[in-house]
């Protein structure tokens, strides 16, 4: 009976479940094959453009491959040892982490402030919202060139304003910490509008009744912000913070255009080191090793960010 119910040619297992035979001939099998065929190109492309380059980079990192100085030789962890003693690389690991942490923190705080302001009703709010996006729309290279002039010790508008107010002259781009501050300020100026937009969208999803209830309870503006706005925005803030953190780890164009990694290597980031090793001296082996160092930093920071996100998710 069971076999008749299952269909001609089908066999049953011990628990009465139908066993498949001749998968390619059945309709279910054909649909399965169609699904596989449709998915294979996308998966193959992804694997070929992501997995294969990663494996090849790992291999190159273990060699001293330089096409101008053949042949390539396997040197094991020789590149790693070189990185550990290369002051330019160790300095850039430290500054890369500092750069992304401070930039992300400032972007989150300022982005929230911008989003809150743009959420208030005022005349010309539409224009303000559009104007807010201008920095984000400008290419980073253009911003970097502009800010390089603005921070110039003799021609720059910033040193001039500071001098007029305080009488002090500060050589931003010549001082190691000044140049680091300059690139962070430029980066924050460029990226904050995007976060402002994200937070604006999030704020518009906060029910007005909650603010009314807080007002009835006697909360002032700051208390409303702290008790209503912040908790509801925390998941988005964590997500965006994680996104910006990982995204900015690969920053290159700002540093290349604005400071060239100088003065010395005060503003060098890992992406710049990779570029210099690969395209300065064709040191593909060494550049691959530095790439793996960047991957490690991304992995660790991304992992920590995910842990934080999960904690926030549980809280809310």
């Amino acid at each position, binding site marked *: 009976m069971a076999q008749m119910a299952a269909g001609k040619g089908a066999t049953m297992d011990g628990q009465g479940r139908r066993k498949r035979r001749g998968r390619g001939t*059945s*309709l*279910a*099998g054909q*649909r*399965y094959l169609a*699904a*596989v065929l449709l*998915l*294979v190109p996308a*998966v*193959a492309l992804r*694997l*070929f453009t992501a*997995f*294969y380059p990663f494996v*090849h980079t790992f291999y190159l990192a273990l060699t001293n491959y330089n*096409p*101008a*100085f*053949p042949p390539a030789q396997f040197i094991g962890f020789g590149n790693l040892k*070189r990185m550990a003693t290369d*002051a*330019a690389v160790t300095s850039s690991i430290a500054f890369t982490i500092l750069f992304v942490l401070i930039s992300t923190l400032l972007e989150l705080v300022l982005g929230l402030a911008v989003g809150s302001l743009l959420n208030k009703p005022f005349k010309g709010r539409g224009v303000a919202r559009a104007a807010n996006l201008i920095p984000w729309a400008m290419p980073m290279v253009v911003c970097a060139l502009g800010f*390089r*002039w603005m921070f*110039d*010790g*003799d*021609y720059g508008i910033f040193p001039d304003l500071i001098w007029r107010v305080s009488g002090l002259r500060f*050589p931003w*781009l*010549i*001082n*190691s910490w000044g*140049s680091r501050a300059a690139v962070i300020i430029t980066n924050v100026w460029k990226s904050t509008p995007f976060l402002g937009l994200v937070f604006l969208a999030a704020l518009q999803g906060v029910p007005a009744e909650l603010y009314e209830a807080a007002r009835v309870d006697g909360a002032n503006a700051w208390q409303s912000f702290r008790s209503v706005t912040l908790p509801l925005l925390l998941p988005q803030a964590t997500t965006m913070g994680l996104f910006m953190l990982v995204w900015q780890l690969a920053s290159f164009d700002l540093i290349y255009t604005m*400071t*060239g*990694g*100088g*003065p*010395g*290597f*005060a503003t060098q980031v890992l992406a710049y080191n990779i*570029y*210099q090793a690969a*395209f*300065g*001296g*064709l*040191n593909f082996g060494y550049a691959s090793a530095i790439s793996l160092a960047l991957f490690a930093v991304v992995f660790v920071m991304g992992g920590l960010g995910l842990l934080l996100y999960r904690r926030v998710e549980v809280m809310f």
Partner: protein
Amino acid sequence: MSQRKLTRRDFLKFAGTSLAAASAAGLLGSCGPNATPAPASPTQAAKATPVASVAPSQAAAKPTAAPAKGKTLVVAIQAFAHDAMKPVLSAWEAKTGNKVSLESGPATGQEMMTKYAPPFQSGTSPVDVLSVDDVSGPAFARAGWLMPLDDIIPQETWKDFPEGMLPPVDKDYFHSYNGKRYRVPHEFAVGYFWYRRDWFEEKKVSVPKTWDEFVTVGKAFTKDGVWGTTEGMKKPGLTFVYLAYLTAQTGGDIFKFDDATAQAFQFAYDLIYTHKIMPETVLAEDYTQQNDRYMKDTVAMMRQWPYFWDVARGNTAWYKEGRADIALPPAGPAGPKTWYGGWGWSVPKAAPNPEEAKDLIAWITSNANAPTLAKGQSWFVMPRKSILDAMGNTGLPVYMNQYTKAGCLVPRPYHPKQSDAETVVDDVGQLFLTKQMSLADAMKAGRERIAALG
């Protein structure tokens, strides 16, 4: 109709299949004929072939196969040189029936490497003829990505260059590697000493002939927003240029970070912080900003490349006679020196139209066409006999001759890993000049990093 869900096992199965397919595709791709074998190492070449004679090959250039007609070749060179190229290229087009498309080439060695290393590495080339600089040219030649030109360029062209500008072909240098030439220079980049003759005449000040006089004159001009001198020393590359210029005047070997190099570094530091005749902001400025300072009447003297001749005269709102004159550089302990380098023409080994490219490069670099290019753009002015005969006593050749006769010219410092070595000078120079490192530590760090290059 029954529906079958895609299980985790099935997904892993076809992901594994896809991975295998992707890996196989990658392996098959890398096994193709794209990889260009590099030239044999010097030791192998030395064992296999006797060292070439000092003079370039005595044989006349082998006649190349007749180029086909109707092809379009791509020539890459910096955009400001395109107008000067057009008459020469038009004549070649008329002669051969082929077309030439000019492409804007990068302006620095590192940009050259960035743009062309990937296609060359993969065995292809987006261009047929390429203008390469002193950093990328040797690297490309070593990697086996350029065609040897000894048999393509006729002897009369090689002999048109002054002795010393093209060292013996068996010496690895900017134009040659492993006994072959890979580049025909088309630019003679000299760090000239530019000054405001009008200001000097007004103040009745003589052109400085020594470092001490340079400082004294610089102090005389430095006040009220005007500086004695300026430079563009932004990374990458520009710090090396200026420090190598000063090291030429001390007689040092900059890549050895010797005592004479330390003297040059200290002089640069003193110009900024001790004598205060050069603004410290130059360490973050490029040549555009440097030229801008000069043409905004805030600088009395500076070192700058020959292209400033056209830049200054092209600024018709500002330029007047006497505002951008050239004098011999101030003499350091080793005399009034400046280093020269330059760009040159090469043909990529993977050029899409190799036979036509060979004909084109021979045409562009010929003794007949070199003066045409030089008259069209000062960047092409070189001490080639054909150019000096054609241009007579006008323009930049006057100063080129002056510098040559005074023995001012020294060749650009050379290192087999040119880009890496210049980066070391950039980094160490900036660390010292921004007070992040002492002079002694800078010299030590420089020596160690150069040694680490191998």
